[in-house]
């Protein structure tokens, strides 16, 4: 068993941290306050090679990093970039749009969409949820009806990360209602197509720089060449994509937790009350230990799940546990960080309260934590 990182991996981490500190962190508070998507930073990430980390060189321009190394870089990005919304949007595209296209797409689809997403020119969204199909995802209503040369899609997807700004979206739709879950297919919808409308940004509590909203399809023509995999492959694509999503999408929040812990420790060492640093009080130091424990257990779970996936092993239980534990740890540590920093932590100026707001969504997206507990229990043989 080897827990260390190679020199190459450490150099990559250092480079990502330097890039993020220099290019991505300024202005995050203002962007959060106005709910603005920082497109310039997105493009800088593309130029640096973030979106292309795990993509083969023919699409990204640089050699593909393995899954564990790519996640290590995204962990570093979360540590050094104060904008958790930006890192969340990047992860959403990388693991739930680019990866399914890489795994299931035709060569035409890979050539057409992956290089532009890697460069930061295109933004991709993963559109599966509907108003009445959330946790019960397969009860969706969006239909794709065959027509000459392709399909016509009609339906409304909601709570889609980056929908208001996306150039393309992976849309899950029913092609054959008679076949139930086998009748689900996936389409790459280009959002400038006739009949495709991007809804307005829906205001939300956290991750405010990652715009989300609806994608409305009204008799929208999608050519057959944009169907991802064969007709009926939706079940396989969604199962595969969901497992990657659970394992990977929160990785930058691991880095954010590390940053949050360092800030809290520094504050506890320097803030004095009753004539001594507050860290000398066990009520405070124990809280910091709890934060450290959550960080390290989340880290171990995440890299174990990623390692398993990299070996081609089943990681359904591991992925459920990562998603569950990391998201709940980020919420708990966000609250502990504010408790440690007191009144200052509660203000927007300290930029600590934002991480707590950013953390809350994690217990909901990528499959709610209630569902993750169900999945984990079943994987443990408890029905």
């Amino acid at each position, binding site marked *: 068993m080897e827990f260390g990182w190679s020199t190459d991996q450490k150099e990559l981490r250092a480079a990502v941290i330097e890039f993020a500190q220099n290019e991505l962190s300024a202005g995050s508070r203002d962007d959060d306050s106005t709910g603005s998507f920082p497109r310039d930073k997105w493009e800088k990430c593309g130029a640096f090679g973030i979106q292309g980390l795990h993509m083969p060189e023919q699409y990204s321009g640089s050699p593909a990093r393995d899954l564990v190394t790519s996640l290590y870089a995204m962990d570093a990005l979360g540590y050094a970039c104060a904008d958790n919304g930006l890192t969340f949007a990047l992860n959403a595209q990388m693991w739930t749009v680019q990866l399914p296209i890489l795994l299931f797409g035709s060569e035409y689809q890979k050539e057409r969409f992956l290089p532009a997403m890697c460069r930061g020119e295109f933004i991709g969204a993963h559109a599966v949820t509907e108003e009445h199909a959330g946790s019960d995802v397969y009860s969706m209503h969006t239909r794709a009806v065959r027509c000459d040369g392709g399909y016509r899609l009609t339906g409304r997807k909601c709570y889609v990360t980056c929908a208001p700004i996306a150039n393309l979206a992976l849309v899950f739709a029913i092609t054959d209602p008679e076949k139930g879950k*086998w009748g689900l297919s996936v389409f790459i919808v280009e959002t400038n197509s006739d009949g495709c409308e991007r809804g307005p940004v829906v205001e939300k509590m956290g991750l405010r720089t990652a715009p989300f909203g609806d994608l409305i399809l009204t008799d929208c023509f999608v050519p057959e060449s944009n169907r991802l995999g064969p007709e009926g*492959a939706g*079940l396989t694509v969604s*199962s*595969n994509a969901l497992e990657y999503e659970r394992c990977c999408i929160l990785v930058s929040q691991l880095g954010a937790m590390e940053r949050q812990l360092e800030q809290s420790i520094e504050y506890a060492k320097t803030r004095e009350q009753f004539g001594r640093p507050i860290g000398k009080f066990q009520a405070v130091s124990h809280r910091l230990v709890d934060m450290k424990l959550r960080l390290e257990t989340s880290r171990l779970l995440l890299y174990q799940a990623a390692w398993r996936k990299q070996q081609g092993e*089943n990681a*359904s239980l591991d992925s459920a546990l990562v998603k569950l534990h990391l998201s709940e740890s980020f919420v708990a540590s966000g609250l502990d960080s504010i408790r440690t920093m007191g009144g200052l932590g509660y203000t927007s100026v300290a930029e600590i309260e934002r991480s707590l707001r950013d953390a809350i969504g994690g217990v909901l997206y990528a499959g709610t934590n209630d569902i993750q507990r169900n999945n984990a229990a079943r994987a443990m*043989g408890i029905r």
Partner: protein
Amino acid sequence: MRIEKQSIEQLILDFISSELADGTTPAPQDDLLTSGLVDSMGMMWLIQHLEDEFDTAVPPLDVTIENFGTVGAIAAYMSRRLTNSASGVSSQ
């Protein structure tokens, strides 16, 4: 490798009955997913079980209604796959 379709079918039936369907044993031609006997996650576990049992990988895009709709279809697919992989031919 030559494994009888019938023995694969029994292995699948046993797994569904004991692990996925609370003791209910489907008929070989029952539609697993649309009947609700097995849900989507259960289907993925069944596939994992078959991969472990027969030391083979099922390509994700082979997971279609034609190959995995019923116990009989799965057994036929696996039998084909194992025979073909022994002779170096695709199962599709």
